[in-house]
């Protein structure tokens, strides 16, 4: 196996991890601040992708697609928070999971009613549709480099927001002690609304960004939601740092599993066994990782609350 291939696979692991982080960030932010596990986050991601695809088809501009997707999904998030989420915030986790699961059911049918059951087309912006020469032997898709860039930017941005800005400090205050924050004049409900809308916009950004490289169809949210949940559980729910580490771990383990496991097994076992056991193990690898992490750290690697 050449060093170029290994380098490329590492880059792939990073890219997949950052892809997952974009979606995980919004979810864990909402959980950390509002203490609600919003499984409909996948539906917001789906909404972002659909709106972006539709905008792209009408305007042919990728930038417009991303912006419109973020704005529209942010608006949907706003309505959702006012109508439903604030009622679920005071309930137990099971009620939250079920209430937001109901949203998934409704959203899938609504999307099907508007756009039909066939997958939507979203073409890649021509400027980014080809590969870029990183190393003499290594051609890497330009679009994936964009994903890496946006992912890192989002991570940095969120970190700065939460630790350096006044709004971020208020958000953390509201999370750690709601009553005290209210007594000190912080409008906690407004804060929570803002955080939820931010989470929705992050999901939409992820959806718009991944639209050109994934299938845009009903149920796309749930497919990726499982992976994202694994990321934030490993990292520690509620912690942005945890989501980042968890997503990168999942990205690397999953990519390495698919890239190297079959070859590794071939060293010890017959090709027939390697090709039948390898992919299965690779598919299970991230769940095994999560189980192992939870055995030693039952609250994840960087739990936000003790």
């Amino acid at each position, binding site marked *: 196996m050449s060093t170029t291939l290994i380098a490329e696979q590492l880059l792939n692991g990073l890219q997949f991890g950052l892809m997952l982080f974009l979606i995980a960030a919004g979810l864990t932010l909402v959980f950390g601040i509002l203490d609600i596990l919003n499984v409909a986050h996948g539906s917001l991601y789906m909404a972002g992708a659909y709106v972006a695809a539709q905008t792209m088809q009408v305007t042919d501009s990728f930038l417009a697609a991303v912006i419109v997707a973020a704005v529209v999904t942010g608006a949907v998030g706003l309505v959702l928070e006012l109508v439903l989420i604030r009622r679920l915030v005071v309930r137990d986790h099971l009620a939250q999971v079920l209430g937001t699961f109901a949203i998934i059911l409704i959203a899938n049918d609504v999307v099907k009613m508007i756009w039909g059951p066939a997958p939507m087309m979203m*073409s*890649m912006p021509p400027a980014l549709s080809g590969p870029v020469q990183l190393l003499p032997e290594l051609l890497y898709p330009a679009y994936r480099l964009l994903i890496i860039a946006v992912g890192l930017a989002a991570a940095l941005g969120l970190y700065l927001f939460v630790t350096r800005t006044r709004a971020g400090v208020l958000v953390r205050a509201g999370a750690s002690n709601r009553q005290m924050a209210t007594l000190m004049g912080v409008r906690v409900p407004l804060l929570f609304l803002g955080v939820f809308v931010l989470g929705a916009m992050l999901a939409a950004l992820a959806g718009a960004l991944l639209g050109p490289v994934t299938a845009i169809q009903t149920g796309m949210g749930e497919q990726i939601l499982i992976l994202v949940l694994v990321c934030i559980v490993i990292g520690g729910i509620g912690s942005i740092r945890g989501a980042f580490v968890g997503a990168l771990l999942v990205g690397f383990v999953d990519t390495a599993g698919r890239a190297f496991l079959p070859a590794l097994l071939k060293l010890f076992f017959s090709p027939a066994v390697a090709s039948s056991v390898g992919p299965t193990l690779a598919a299970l690898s991230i769940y095994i990782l999560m189980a192992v992490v939870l055995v030693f750290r039952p609250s994840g690697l960087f739990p936000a609350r003790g």
Partner: protein
Amino acid sequence: MRLMRQLLVMAALLPGLAFAQAPIKVGIANDLSGPFAALGAEARDGFNLAIKQLGGKLGGKPAEFLQTDMGGNPDQARQLVNRYIQRDKIDFFTGPIGSNVALAVGPVLFAAKIPYLSNNPGPSQFAGAQCNDYWFGVSYQNDAFHEAAGKVAADRGYKKMVIMAPDYPAGKDALNGFKRGFKNAVGQEIYTKLGQIDYAAELAQLRDAKPDAVYIFLPGGMGINFIKQFVSAGLNQSIKLVGPGFSADEDVIRAVGEPMLGMFNTAQWAHDLDNQQNKKFVEAFRKEYKNRTPSVYAAQAYDVIMAIDAAVKATDGKVSDRAAVLVALKKADFASVRGPFKYGANNFPIQPYYVRVIEKAPDGQITNKLVGKVFESYQDVYVGECKK
């Protein structure tokens, strides 16, 4: 006196009333939610076009078409079929897109002596060891598309191949089928995860292996994901893409678009296949569904209804005589959009397979173009195992 006359009239009419026919019932289990929703919608459109053209009748006799969604779930499909058999008392069955559902509901239908005409799945089990008189694989046998693709790859002179499929029995069957058609040794076999979204790792392996072509069996969203990412990685410049018809039909083209140009794929039908029935079908489909070109799923569904219609006509509507219905169905005396149609011993078709390439048509639309014939009359390899 008047009463007597009225009674006489009624008595004269009575025999006619007694023989007034119950409508012929066709139970259709649609796949409208779940993993095959897009394909199921295509099939449903094919069904509805045929039903509309026949005026809701079969063989000229009144008919009822029951359509219900079972979401691609074998357990729910089983329950639906039970309802169709026990409550609605259907005479024919069709609808599912996935092989797993066909395998789940087949035995029940066969035991109840209800002909099941398949508008898509062609599991090898029903072609071989579990073949049954009540099964009609109108569409194709699952391995066929892959064997044809293998031959295409060999014919086009691809020496080094990488082949990919998801890690489940249908995937393994597909790649085995391809290898049978290809005949030479394949460079690398890659198995991916069912429902996998990101193929960067596999694409890196592909780039490292530098094959002449890559063959993919990645149904549904998986194929869309892969093709988009394959082109984005620039691999389509140096590696040719070959796939079975289901990964490259009109529905996938509508979702992916330009990146698919140049992809070779194999199928037993193409929308530009040159026969009367097909031309009429494509034109009618475009007219009915806002200028949309039909996919192979719509064509297969359409054929199923027409096949039932022909069989009912041949038995003059006496569908309760199952033996006669089976004979009529086997004879397949209907005008298929694929041209002349005939069954092999195991009720799977012996038919030609074509190779198509995705091109930009003169009117700017991206679509499949028929470029050649791969097999003249292909019969599946499982027919020998069928001992009826």
